[in-house]
């Protein structure tokens, strides 16, 4: 039973983290809101007064807005589908008896530890370069014309790079979940005559659904914010400009802070819609 004394002590111990996070959230957020209602061009006249909702209207009516929303959703969705599907298959494979399981695990999770600027540059130059890349050599070896990966199939290339980075994460978590699956349940089902496919569909998949949900939640948080992968590969060209990248360009490249801030508010709203949906799931898990 917690006493009154320990309760107030607990509050004091929680205070630094809560106050810091509150400040980290509220101070920049209110500044973004403030700027979003202003015409603010730091390099061309500075603060040019209040403009009401003009920035909000201009941001969504600019021709770059909807494509950037679509790009964001395609990248996040594409990476989620690839990593979850391949992750489930890989996790099942890695759970089978084999020699050198530990080493295979290390090989599979390694990409997760590679910093985003490195993986993006390595893929861009050493694999996807249309002249000197390994893919180009491979294509030529089969008599095909090398593909201009980052301009002709730019979205596919970005999704591939990011999936390579996140597949280890999905695999590792799903593997852990599979390992906690009750062997006896599977064997009982087998004795009752359930076919492998049926065992997979009715026992393994339901058991994994919780882990899959968690993988989707955590990956979405990180995927909505991917930046370096686009920054060092296409620089937002060839239809790879995500909402994050568009706002970055408005704020730091064209130094139109008012417009960029309005975009920032949209990004925050979009992230919150997804977060709300996902929070509910985590909240349920907290009770369990």
């Amino acid at each position, binding site marked *: 039973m917690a006493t009154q004394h*320990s309760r107030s*002590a*607990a*509050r004091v111990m*929680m205070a*630094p*983290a*809560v106050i*810091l*996070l509150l400040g*980290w959230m509220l101070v*920049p*957020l209110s*500044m*973004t809101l403030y700027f979003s209602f202003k015409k603010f061009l730091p390099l061309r006249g500075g603060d040019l007064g209040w403009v009401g909702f003009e920035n909000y209207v201009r941001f969504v009516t600019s021709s770059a807005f909807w494509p950037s929303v679509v790009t964001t959703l395609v990248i996040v969705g594409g990476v989620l589908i690839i990593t979850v599907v391949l992750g489930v298959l890989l996790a099942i*494979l*890695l759970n*089978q*008896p084999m*020699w050198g*399981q530990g*080493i*295979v*695990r*290390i*090989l*599979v*999770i*390694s*990409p*997760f*530890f*590679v910093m*985003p*600027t490195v993986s993006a*540059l*390595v893929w861009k*130059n*050493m*694999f996807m370069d249309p002249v000197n890349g390994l893919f180009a050599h491979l294509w*030529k070896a089969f008599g095909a014309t090398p593909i201009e990966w980052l301009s002709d199939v730019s979205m596919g290339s970005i999704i591939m790079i990011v999936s390579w980075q996140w597949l*280890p994460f999905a695999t*590792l978590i799903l593997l852990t979940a599979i390992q*906690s699956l009750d*062997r006896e349940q599977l064997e009982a089902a087998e004795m009752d005559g359930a076919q492998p496919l049926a065992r997979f569909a009715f026992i393994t998949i339901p058991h994994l659904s919780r882990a899959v949900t968690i993988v989707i939640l955590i990956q979405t948080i990180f995927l909505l*914010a991917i*930046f*370096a992968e686009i*920054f*060092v590969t296409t620089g937002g060209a060839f239809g790879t400009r995500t909402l994050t990248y568009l706002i*970055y360009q408005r*704020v*730091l490249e064209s130094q139109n802070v008012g417009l960029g801030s309005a975009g*920032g508010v949209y*990004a925050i709203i979009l*992230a*919150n819609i*997804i977060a709300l949906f996902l929070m509910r799931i*985590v*909240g349920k898990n907290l009770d369990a």
Partner: protein
Amino acid sequence: MARAVKPQRKAINTAVAWSIGLLIFFPILWTILTSFKTEAQAISDPPVFLAFDWTLENYGIVMERSNYARFLWNSIIIAGGSTILGIMIAVPAAWSMAFVPSKRTKDILLWMLSTKMLPAVGVLYPIYLLFIKLGLLDSRTGLVLVLMLMNLPIIVWMLYTYFKEIPGEILEAARMDGATLREEVIHILTPMAVPGIASTLLLNFILAWNEAFWTLNLTAAKAAPLTAFIASYSSPEGLFYAKLSAASTMAIAPILVLGWFSQKQLVSGLTFGAVK
């Protein structure tokens, strides 16, 4: 009871799993191999796999040209500093939430997680402006602060889930024996929590080391860590694959090895304890 597995079946599993594992690892392997080639061999067609003249000259060129040591030191200070500071702030918070929960504990935890979902780009300019005003732009102190705040929700969550597993009875017994809160934390909780704190430390060090939004946008020459060092290779001149590979290998090698050692604690840490 596990059943005996036919050797053929095991051999097939092994072959398939190793092929896929090597395929996934290949870009890293290729980068490491290329770092030991000459620039001409690095782009040769057909590519050479192992039969090339191994050389260390790329490492020498990269170190000499870009002052690699300074970037490395910045990475260590920024990732290490933000992680340690974050843990110092998060331990008391997570402790009180795990052992003196109130009706609002769950809401606070979820709220903390929600701050992690705030897109960084939405607050890019305010942070940029504050950094200029406070003289923190291109400083390690500034990045330590930002990365600490960015990872604080994850640190609190990880510690919370580890602390939750410590049986409350032990603490009650200590309390009966007259231990104060301070003593409880220092003498009972801390030793039991060391493994949890260690894996939190490791994971957040890795996350901070690889962070590439704030480190790219808030640094220039002075405080730039390895993420920015590598990004400087995105507008190359002439042949540069071997040098890029050497620079990349140096940037990822330390964290790759740390990652291999931490893989056991990784899952419960990254899923906020929801998958074990």
